[in-house]
């Protein structure tokens, strides 16, 4: 199993977000738009951060928005949101965030290979700055397809 399809309608370039909940909401909106989840999933992604903190900011400039599988996940899905102005999540090392990758998985067991592919994409340190500076969705899509293949 490789990365779930990253359709163009799951990519938002240059979103405006005043704070981290707005940034997560932009990622949730992209998952809803592409048919991967319902808006209830957006709320659950925000809850994860309220409960556990900004640990989802797993690399400089990058937040991995996600929650547990649930009825609000319609199918495995991935989205990418880039922000015009980076926002602070409260992480001691990796703030501010300019790229949010949203992840929705339908089942806990089948996501490991999928996440390994995500690691393959982002283990290249040039990828986060490249995504942050992307000016169109086609470029973002090509970054994921190039590295994951």
């Amino acid at each position, binding site marked *: 199993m490789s990365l779930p399809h990253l359709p163009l309608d799951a990519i938002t370039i240059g979103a405006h977000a005043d704070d981290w909940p707005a940034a997560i909401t932009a990622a949730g909106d992209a998952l809803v738009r592409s048919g991967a989840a319902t808006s209830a999933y957006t709320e659950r992604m925000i809850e994860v951060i309220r409960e556990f903190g900004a640990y989802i900011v*797993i*690399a400089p400039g990058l937040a*991995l928005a996600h929650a547990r599988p649930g009825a609000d996940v319609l199918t495995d899905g991935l989205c990418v949101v880039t922000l015009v102005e980076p926002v602070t999540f409260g992480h001691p*090392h*990796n703030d501010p965030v300019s790229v949010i990758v949203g992840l929705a998985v339908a089942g806990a067991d089948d*996501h490991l290979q999928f996440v390994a592919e995500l690691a393959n994409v982002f283990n290249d340190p040039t990828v986060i700055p490249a995504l942050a500076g992307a000016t169109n969705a086609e470029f973002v899509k090509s970054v994921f397809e190039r590295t994951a293949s």
Partner: protein
Amino acid sequence: MKIVVMCGIGLGTSAILKVNTERALERLDIAASVLATDVAGVRAAAADAQVILTSSELVNAIGKTNADVIVINNYFDVDELVVKLDIALGS
């Protein structure tokens, strides 16, 4: 040897950390099993673990443990993992 990687909900972030920890161990030529867990499961998962890897945000959630706790800043930086694991496990 057992290494536990922990995140808030036990998938997504911890799965990424597990994959890259295994890559770092391979580079160090260290044989170890790597188990991903969440805040709720860390006490049981780490009872016989030598090392717990997690984010600075979650260190306090671990509570009392005999394992070495290592804070990872960049989950995609295998070099950071290699350096920190080598310090914790290297002879």
